């Protein structure tokens, strides 16, 4: 296998606290050398990537992306979304189990792995179902799912009404050191709501989802974490109160981690005020105060990870009155730019932001990537942190274009992406 050298870029590796101009040598899929710029000897077999003026970072890791396959291939496929992911600098995507069929048995994991390998772009890791069929009634075969490669378990937003079942699921998962990913939601409180329970939903007459739908679910889970010792990751926080509860629980040393979706850091309930269905997301966009608390949580470390919460949809899914549209944003292409935007809006450095989308998710998902250390798998994202570009439907490579950020001027453009040491994408 030939070598690749990435020369003269600003290498940022949050895990090793490196932020300097350097060269990286990649051989046989691994990072084999990191030296001062222009100090690595190059032979004729080595492919050279000139990264002058560019940032070299670990490949991005997105801890929540729906790929729609198996089950909803008219919205997107593993092939279409992993291609889009490489163009967005994302080298690993974590796929929740609410596919059809549900990822509750090893065969589905194998199917996804095979499709991913055939496509040959970004990598996919899977979460298995916490309960069989996500029905919230019987435990899934957790150990078998772990053996099949699932990096964790989740019931997505499907309810587990019986608290005893949730407690036993957490206890059983804890026995085998499997992390459980919870999207906190009391479905009786969220019901068929589609907007934050606040003045915009009141004005528009939309069925609403109160903050308590999220906080009561977090409170219930936290009590069970304390009793079972299960490692729990809370996904897609949306409210200031949730950030406060998580901060307190972390103070008490509970084994929990959390993420927030990138769009929650940049949009609020105001964005739905003209019935803009592109902003129909679950959990809903809440108030400016919530948005600020979420940003503050990212800054102070209460929130460990930022994810894209990518949810591609076909055109028809968003062509209806607001409440009848499907929730979710096609979010791969905007993932890096929206995260970089935090360096302008908050005190976070570029390295701080990158850590939330590389090192931190790698640690939670138990991945061997997310850093540029010598000997590690060469998943690398090379981007121009300064380049401005406008998001249009032509610049979206995902199969689906459902995003409220169309027309936005974004900053930060991916130039090259390496997956397992192979140059998969060059602009």
């Amino acid at each position, binding site marked *: 296998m030939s070598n690749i050298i990435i020369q003269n870029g600003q290498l940022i590796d949050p895990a090793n606290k490196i932020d300097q101009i350097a060269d990286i040598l990649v051989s046989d899929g691994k990072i084999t050398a990191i030296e001062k710029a222009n100090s690595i000897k190059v032979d004729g077999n080595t492919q050279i990537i000139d990264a002058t003026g560019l940032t070299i970072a670990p490949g991005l890791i997105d801890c929540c992306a729906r790929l729609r396959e198996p089950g909803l291939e008219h919205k997107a496929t593993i092939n279409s979304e992993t291609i889009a992911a490489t163009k967005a600098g994302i080298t690993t995507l974590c796929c929740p189990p609410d596919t059809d069929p549900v990822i509750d048995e090893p065969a589905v994991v194998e199917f996804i792995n095979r499709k991913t390998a055939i496509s040959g772009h970004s990598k996919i890791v899977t979460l298995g179902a916490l309960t069989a069929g996500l029905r919230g009634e019987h435990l899934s075969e957790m150990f078998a799912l772990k053996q099949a490669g699932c990096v964790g378990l989740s019931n997505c937003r499907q309810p587990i009404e019986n608290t005893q079942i949730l407690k036993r699921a957490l206890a059983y998962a804890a026995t085998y050191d499997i992390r459980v990913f919870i999207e906190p939601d009391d479905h009786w409180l969220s019901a068929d709501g589609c907007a934050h329970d606040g003045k915009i939903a009141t004005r528009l007459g939309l069925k609403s989802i109160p903050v308590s739908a999220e906080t009561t679910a977090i409170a219930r889970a936290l009590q069970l974490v304390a009793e079972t010792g299960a490692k729990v990751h809370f996904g897609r926080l949306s409210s200031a109160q949730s950030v406060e509860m998580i901060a307190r629980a972390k103070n008490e040393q509970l084994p929990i981690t959390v993420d927030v979706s990138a769009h929650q850091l940049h949009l609020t309930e105001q964005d739905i005020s003209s019935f803009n269905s592109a902003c129909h997301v679950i959990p809903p966009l809440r108030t400016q105060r919530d948005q600020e608390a979420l940003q503050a949580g990212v800054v102070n470390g209460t929130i460990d990870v930022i994810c894209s919460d990518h949810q591609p949809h076909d055109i028809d899914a968003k062509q209806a009155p607001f*409440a009848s549209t499907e929730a979710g944003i096609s979010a791969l292409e905007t993932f890096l730019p929206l995260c970089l935007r935090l360096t302008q809006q908050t005190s976070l450095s570029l390295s701080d932001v990158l850590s939330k989308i590389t090192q931190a998710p790698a640690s939670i998902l138990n991945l061997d990537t997310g850093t540029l250390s010598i000997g590690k798998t060469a998943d690398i994202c090379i981007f121009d942190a300064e380049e401005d570009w406008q998001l249009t439907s032509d610049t979206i490579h995902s199969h689906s274009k459902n995003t409220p950020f169309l027309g936005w001027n974004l900053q930060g453009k991916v130039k090259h992406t390496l997956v397992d040491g192979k140059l998969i994408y060059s602009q």
Partner: protein
Amino acid sequence: MVNKATKPTDTLIGHDAWNIQLDKNGQLKHFLTTEGLGSNILTQILDTAESFAGVNEKSVKKVPLLRGKTIVNLFFEASTRTRTTFELAAKRLSADVLNINISTSSTSKGETLLDTLQNIQAMHCDMFVVRHSDSGAAHYIANNVAPNISVINAGDGSHAHPTQAMLDMFTIRRNKGPNFGNLRVAIVGDILHSRVARSQIHALNTLNTGDVRVIAPKTLLPVDIEDMGVNVFHDLEAGIKDADVVIMLRLQKERMQGALLPSEQEYFQLYGLTEERLRVAKSDAIVMHPGPINRGVEIASDVADGPRSVILDQVSNGIAVRMAVMTMTLGRDASASEDHGNSK
């Protein structure tokens, strides 16, 4: 380098949902909500309606203002009164009327709302009068119809029912005079689910009503309703004290199932309007109801049929108000509405 990732300053076409109601000359093109329209437009609707009220009382109740126009009543949700008054209004303006009732099940058979619209649009019509169970449906339709078609919202989910609100304003103005500044208006009942209440609140505030009140238990009030410019009461008698206008809302039977209320009996005991309770309102207070009424649930029969009730006037006024909105939106180029409004 400040805030490089920015929202576009020019919003995408059709995304400013409140301004899509007006054409480039500031005249009413669609009537989707009472929100965001100036008092000049609302007053123009009331004045125009006043001129049509005369037409409705003549023996030949027809004027040729919209001859040759085709109006489609597109009802995705059942309605008797509203659809009938829209139909009468259109016919009295000499328009051709087509009634299309689309049960929600037919759209779930595979035809999307957009498909339905495009099919009807292909029949070359001039106006859609739309009722739909989803909040925002009228805006969605207005954003997706051909540019020459006007859309009137005949009720969308819990969001808006602007012609009902305007016929209520018309009824109030006829009874209380044009100055709303001295009026206390109390709206009683299921504010949470009521598109009528939301549209009334916007209209009353735009017309500078002195005191707009809503009265309901907390389970029937949406959060932050105060932000819409109302004073909130939970006690009926405190809320309607010295009121000039008392508007009772219909209580849907389904509300018992969602644990919003314990029973109709308890609701009537707490919020039902009786002659005795009405005594705390002003002696000349009027009682309104958008209908259909539930006797003995939100209103006692003796009040509904009593001297202060203007419930049936509301229905008649609905025709004049709908005629006004139709001529204002469809007659813009011929400036028919202006001439007519001045001829009263």
